[in-house]
């Protein structure tokens, strides 16, 4: 399942993206100033509520959360690891 569209929709709805066409799957959300540390909290809440995963403190890394593509891959990995499958979005 491609998770990127729903993550992208959340980002574009909740944060200011000056040029949505330029927001690539691997655009850094932090370095581009789209989200800050409080924004990360909002992203985490969205992921936990929408995809039924739990983001551990030691998983709050740029490699998991800094781009739409990385978030999608991270969520997919977490759902695959869940013993009975995380709830669908």
């Amino acid at each position: 399942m491609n998770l990127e569209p729903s993550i992208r929709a959340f980002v574009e709805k909740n944060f200011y993206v000056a040029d949505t066409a330029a927001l690539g799957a691997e655009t850094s959300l932090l370095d581009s100033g789209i989200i800050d540390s409080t924004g990360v909290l909002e992203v985490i809440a969205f992921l936990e509520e929408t995809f039924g995963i739990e983001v551990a403190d030691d998983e709050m890394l740029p490699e998991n959360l800094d781009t739409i593509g990385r978030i999608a891959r991270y969520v997919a990995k977490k759902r695959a690891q869940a013993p009975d499958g995380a709830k669908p979005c």
Partner: protein
Amino acid sequence: MLTRAALAIDAEAVSQRICEHLRATVLGTLRRRGLVLGVSGGVDSAVCTALAARALGPDKVLALFMPERDSSDAALRLGRLVTDRFGVPTLVETLGPALEAIGCYARQVEAIRTVFPAYGDGWKCKVTLPSVVDSDRLSISRLVVQSPSGETHSSRMPAAAYLALVAATNYKQRLRKTTEYYHADRLGYAVVGTPNRLEYDQGFFVKQGDGAADVKPIAHLYKTQVYALAEHLGVPDEVRAQAPTTDTYSLPQTQEEFYFALPFDRMDLCLYGKDHALPAAEVAGAVGLSPEQVERVYRDIDAKRRVAASLHAAPAVLEPVGR
């Protein structure tokens, strides 16, 4: 290779330059007769007190002590050491009742109870950040609480609760500044802001709170240099020996666990290295870190600068007006 010598200053020359700037700004540009400042017991406000007294004369300075419920017991005593040393008139403005009336404490409790429902009378709290040096972890704050029996718990906060806690706590800095301006208006004085370079650059202030002022005499100085000035100007030893704290939440808290990545002396060198485009490898030895760790600190500096930009920004208007 970077060494601590990069931050060495001629303290007397720096003091003279700041005092000349204070006189020109206050008497000339601002057309005011003196200076008001809040004295916290920390080294920054101590140095500003000394500089203000030297620039305009002690009788043209008013130092305010503004304790509230969560202030440390030492703050007032250390502040008095400073004002006694420099002969500056003082007033105590107890802010607890006003903060109580406006809902500062109740709103803090309300926000904290969304995470720790038992939080209430006798509990204490603080907000901490993970070390950016130890890992690539994003700078997500954690709430730490201590029960009346001394048990400590910590948790990540939902965004809304975190923002509500910070917003409620910001009443403190804003009420302090409101009180400083009351006295400044009453006396025809200007208000001193006391940030050092680290705080000013990295946005370690509350907009329209401690970030508001008419003049910020040490905002260009690294904290290391502020300590050098403190020694030169005769700030009492006990004040200079204190570790910098936030004195904002009820649990004791260092500035590096609340905001900065490193203790000030090493943070100064990283900021200097960043500002002078020094490769991380050239800074690493001076601060006792690996180049990779310095790179993390550099990224954290950039992240905080992005946040600081909006804190520094003047109100936006559509087109130039007047002047």
